């Protein structure tokens, strides 16, 4: 059975990445994975780096991986109101555009920064965020 659809938009600082009708938005908030369907209650959530999936209208069986838009998504926010979803994220990269070698060197750098930073310093927390992002993106790359 086809689910009802609702408009979704993905905004990054470098412009709008995607806009269209979807049946489900699947991403990950600070508290865990989330799938937003139509008529969701107003929601404001903080997003973690993960694979963002937009199940487009007409994909009767989302699990089959049919009509799904995938992105490597950075930190950001998800806002659902008036039956429409707005994703405000720092990065949204198509899996095929992921630059693996750049990410790997990035990860190494961030790990070094983390290990050399003082315990409980902002510098350390920041390096940890960088590590988490690079790891999440690398995982998406090897998964696709």
């Amino acid at each position, binding site marked *: 059975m086809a689910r009802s659809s609702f408009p979704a938009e993905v905004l990054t*600082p470098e412009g709008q990445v995607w806009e269209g009708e979807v049946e489900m938005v699947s991403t990950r908030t600070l508290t865990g994975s989330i799938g937003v369907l139509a008529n969701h209650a*107003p929601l404001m959530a903080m997003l973690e780096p993960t694979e963002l999936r937009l199940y487009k209208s007409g994909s009767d069986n989302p699990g089959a991986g049919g009509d799904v838009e995938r992105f490597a998504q950075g930190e950001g926010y998800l806002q659902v109101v008036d039956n429409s979803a707005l994703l405000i994220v720092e990065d949204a990269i198509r899996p095929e555009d992921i630059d693996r070698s750049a990410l790997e060197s990035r990860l190494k750098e961030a790990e070094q920064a983390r290990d050399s930073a003082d315990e409980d310093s902002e510098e350390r927390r920041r390096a940890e965020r960088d590590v988490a992002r690079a790891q999440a993106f690398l995982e998406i790359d090897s998964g696709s």
Partner: protein
Amino acid sequence: MATQKDVKNRISSVKNIQKITKAMEMVAAARLRRAEQRIEHLRPYAQAIRRMTRRTVEAVEKIPSLPLLESHDSEKRVGLLLITGDRGLAGAFNSQIIRAGTRRAGELEGEGKEIAWYASGRRGVSSLTFRGHQVDGAWQGFTDRPAFSDARDIAGDIASQYIDGKVDRVEMIYNGYVSPLTQDVTTDVLLPLKAVEQLLEEDEDAEGETEERESGHKTLWIYEPDPEEILQRLVPDYIEISIYRALLESTASEHGARMTAMRSAQENAGEMIDDLTLEMNRQRQAEITQEIMEVVAGAEGLS
């Protein structure tokens, strides 16, 4: 004295330079258009973040203490972030930033403060090093096309130094983009970030946000996690956005400045070619006269 051939060679080399500058002008014009578009692309994102912040601030019971908003008790060490380009040949684009930075540093040192230097762009980094300053943060290699992740790197480094107390105030100096022909040296205080209330007041002028406010009013929002925590992440986003905008404006300004510089280089080359052509003609005339005189002298010798 230069012979006709020498002058001819010089003319052709100046013509080559003219061609190169023409090409550089065209490249700069194309990049300028792209840079302008990217400034446009940032706007919806920045507005969305601002709207979210306002909503979140309304939802929090008490604004949590955020280290980026608080000024330090004593301002001993002031950071100056200079935003320049990786390449030269853009008129006064880079030098005016360095000059403004050095002047500001002089003022601050006069007040007995220490300076922490930060620079983005190869030109800024190398001129600071050349002047014997120790650079606490250097970012380069992206000024033709800065990505948001570059701004995130800069913001992350500077914000964590601020939070960890290594610097007490940070100012950013960059070429603000006014039009392709004008760049404005702009100095912004990056940290401490203006208080949230002030940020929000400023936004009242932003277009088309009042109706949004009405409809969004009284909606029962689910927050995940609670609004205080969301606010804690939103605040650093402002710094990232400010730096990203400055990088984009600086890039647009750089291409604008290069366009202007290359156009005037072409004009100069044109003038030079005119002068050289005149000299070449004169030279040729002199050579012809010389030959005629020799022929006449030879004929006279025979008679």
